[in-house]
């Protein structure tokens, strides 16, 4: 970044809305606060945990958050429905989403799912729509509503279930099940995860915030202990085993071929065309405008 | 329930199917009341006869009728119905308020007691309705009736099963002189036909003397029998019997006891 960005006034307040409960998938943000990365960059960050269906982009759009954590597909769809938001950084280079099967299952890759199988999944969600369209599962594989519990999965060794690498596999392992995680990225569904979004047009402090975030996440990757302790405090239902299981399991998904945090316009365009082929975006939609490369000139 | 039945013990002829009503050492105390309403009352009302109960407002006449019907359990003593057992339609009660089922027409209110015994006797219903002069109102709902009409429906309902024990709580209270006189006739005819034991609460001593074989004056706290007077002479008596010197004397005497 060559041009000297106008320095933010001391303690620029940032409300950062998470799209889930405090968990390791947000570890870097906690590290950013605890390790003083944000403070040193002139930000006073308040992390607002979310929950199921947390409307983070909506909070951003209605001015109740300055930074919203979202996902690549979500951002594109909501932009098309009136949310003025811009992706500026992403923790997960590869989507943490995928399918989970029992370890003894003959299904080794998503393509192996046989006709007649049943998958518990967020029915009607973009991933399900994508899978059925792309894999030709329409009429062959049954989509069962995932009721937010891994109970039925554990009870049935033949069960296939939608999962996040940051959650269900570790829960299942904690319950003594051996499972295999089949990442969605391998079959072409790969939106960025834990995507940092700010208002569009981007506020002046964006680059400084992104830089601080990058530093914080690098620190978290190096030593997650302090942030994880904070996460455990905020989310006491998370057992120590699951916490460390998730922290390790998510690593490979965080760093992609572009390193940590990068955004590539082509991937947004690709996701946009995938979504429009699924009818979730108007035909011919492009995605690059939904992101801003690091250090882009201020409007 | 302390209502007991003992076998008939030589009642007069016409009482063959009707019970005598005997209150023995009867006591009643309302929940939460300081003093008992009734305390050790003894009274016999003969089988197959008409007994009239008179007494001040609030003294306990309706309560006594409820006890006789077995609708209220006495706190002490007992109510004995002496005579042949009563069938389910053998007993009838005309409550002080008409107590009609709001969702039934006049006709269906009157046929209720028959229906409860699985009987369907349109002729009996029609006869009862015509006796109280309500044939024209048979299809009306209670809300469209006048006060007196409601009372008459209640009377018809009581008569329709031709009961052996008839308990009447101020049945003619809200009726004009003519309707009343015609109902006296209906009542007398019903009685003559069946020879029922009748207990009738009335506030009208003249009426009591005209209609009853025995008039009981009640009063006091706790309730006691102030006077009992048997009225001689066969019934039904013509309305003019009201003006007979013996009747006038009886009325005077009973009023004095009130």
């Amino acid at each position, binding site marked *: 970044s060559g041009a000297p960005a106008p320095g933010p006034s001391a303690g620029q307040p940032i409300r950062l809305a998470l799209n889930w409960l405090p968990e390791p998938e947000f570890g870097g943000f906690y590290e950013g606060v605890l390790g003083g990365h944000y403070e040193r960059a002139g930000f006073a960050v308040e992390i607002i945990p979310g929950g199921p269906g947390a409307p983070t982009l909506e909070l951003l759009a209605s001015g109740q958050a300055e930074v919203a954590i979202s996902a690549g597909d979500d951002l594109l769809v909501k932009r098309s429905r009136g949310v003025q938001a811009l992706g500026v950084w992403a923790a997960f280079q590869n989507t943490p989403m995928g399918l989970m099967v029992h370890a003894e299952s003959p299904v080794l890759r998503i393509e192996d799912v046989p006709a007649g199988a049943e998958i518990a999944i967020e029915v009607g969600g973009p991933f399900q729509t994508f899978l059925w369209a792309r894999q030709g599962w329409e009429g062959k594989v049954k989509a069962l509503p995932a009721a937010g519990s891994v109970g039925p999965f554990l009870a049935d060794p033949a069960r296939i279930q939608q999962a996040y690498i940051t959650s269900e596999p570790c829960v299942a392992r904690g319950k003594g099940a051996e499972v295999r995680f089949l990442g969605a990225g391998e079959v072409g569904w790969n939106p960025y995860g834990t995507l940092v979004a700010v208002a569009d047009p981007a506020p002046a402090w964006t680059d400084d915030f992104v830089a601080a975030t990058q530093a914080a996440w690098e620190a978290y990757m190096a030593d997650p202990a302090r942030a994880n302790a904070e996460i455990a405090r905020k989310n006491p239902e998370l057992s120590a085993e699951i916490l460390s299981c998730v922290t390790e399991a998510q690593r490979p998904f965080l760093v992609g071929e572009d390193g940590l945090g990068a955004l590539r316009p082509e991937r947004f365009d690709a996701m946009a065309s995938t979504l429009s082929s699924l009818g979730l975006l108007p035909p011919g939609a492009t995605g690059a405008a939904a992101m801003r490369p690091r250090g882009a000139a201020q409007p | 329930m302390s209502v007991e039945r003992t076998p008939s013990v030589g009642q007069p002829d016409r009482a063959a199917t009707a019970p005598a009503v005997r209150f023995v050492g009867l006591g009643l105390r309302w929940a939460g009341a300081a003093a008992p309403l009734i305390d050790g009352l003894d009274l016999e009302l003969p089988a197959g006869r008409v007994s009239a109960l008179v007494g001040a407002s609030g003294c306990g006449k309706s309560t006594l009728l409820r006890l006789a019907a077995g609708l209220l359990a006495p706190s002490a003593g007992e109510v004995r119905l002496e005579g042949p057992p009563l069938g389910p339609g053998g007993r009838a009660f005309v409550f002080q308020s008409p107590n009609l089922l709001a969702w039934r027409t006049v006709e269906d209110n009157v046929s209720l007691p028959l229906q*409860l015994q699985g009987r369907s006797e349109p002729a009996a219903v029609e006869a009862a309705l015509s006796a109280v002069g309500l044939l024209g109102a048979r299809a009306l709902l209670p809300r469209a009736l006048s006060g007196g009409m409601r009372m008459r429906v209640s009377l018809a309902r009581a008569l329709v099963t031709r009961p052996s024990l008839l308990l009447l709580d101020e049945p003619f209270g809200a009726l004009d002189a003519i309707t009343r006189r015609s109902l006296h006739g209906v009542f007398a005819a019903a009685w003559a036909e069946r020879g029922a034991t009748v207990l009738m609460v009335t506030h009208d001593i003249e009426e009591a003397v005209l209609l009853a074989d025995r008039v009981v004056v009640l009063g006091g706290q706790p309730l006691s029998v102030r006077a009992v007077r048997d009225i001689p002479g066969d019934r039904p008596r013509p309305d003019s019997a009201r003006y007979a010197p013996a009747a006038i004397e009886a009325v005077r005497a009973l009023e004095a006891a009130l």
Partner: protein
Amino acid sequence: MSGTPARSMALPAAVAVGVLVAWAGLASRLPEVLLPGPISVAHAVVDRWELLGRSALSTAGSAGLGLLIGSAVGLGLGVGFLWSRALELAVYPYALLLQTLPVVAVAPLLVVWLGYGAPVAVASAALVSFFPMLTAAHVGLLGVDPEQVELFRLYGASRLQELRWLRAPSALPAVFAGLRTAAGLSVIGAIVGEFVGSNGEPPSLGYLVLRSARSADTALTFAAVIAAACLAGVVYWAARTAEARLIGPWHPGQGGGRA
């Protein structure tokens, strides 16, 4: 004295216009994904008319059947409670448990037992509609004129006769009040059941709400919500009509009694 028909329609019309204007105004200041305006919802209704219709029919079936089952169980239990205080003490805690049962919590069980599709919706509708009917029956059957009970006793009426000819008719106003609540609840109950137990075959309003919410198609979500309200409206007015027919002629609360 409810005024002329013209006057009595003026306020509803004004309110409807007011609601639409307020909605449109609010929507114009919020992103579409949060609150679509009336026009885009109308568009969604028109465009997805067939899907909405088919979904509403299927949800209506589940709600109706659930309401039927819930009412039968609720009214039956109400009679049981009338006849046995011990039964009431024994069963009421479980009735309360059922009323407060989050369907999500037992969704896996329901699905295992009933399979996917309408049965879960029916069960969920029955679960929520049963309690208001139970309460209505309980209150209505007990709230009878004591002198009329005496009348039935006097004639040696059996419990069943007392129920059929006295308590049941006299409980009707209370039961219909319960039915008004249960009617709407059965619809939302079915929808919640469809959230967790429907796999899109057949399409249902719950599935549609969930699906459209997931794909941020909020206009369709709102269209489905409005369809659900219309459904409840139909059940509700059917109940009101039955009420007016059955108890209108004799119950003071009906018809002309208005202040």
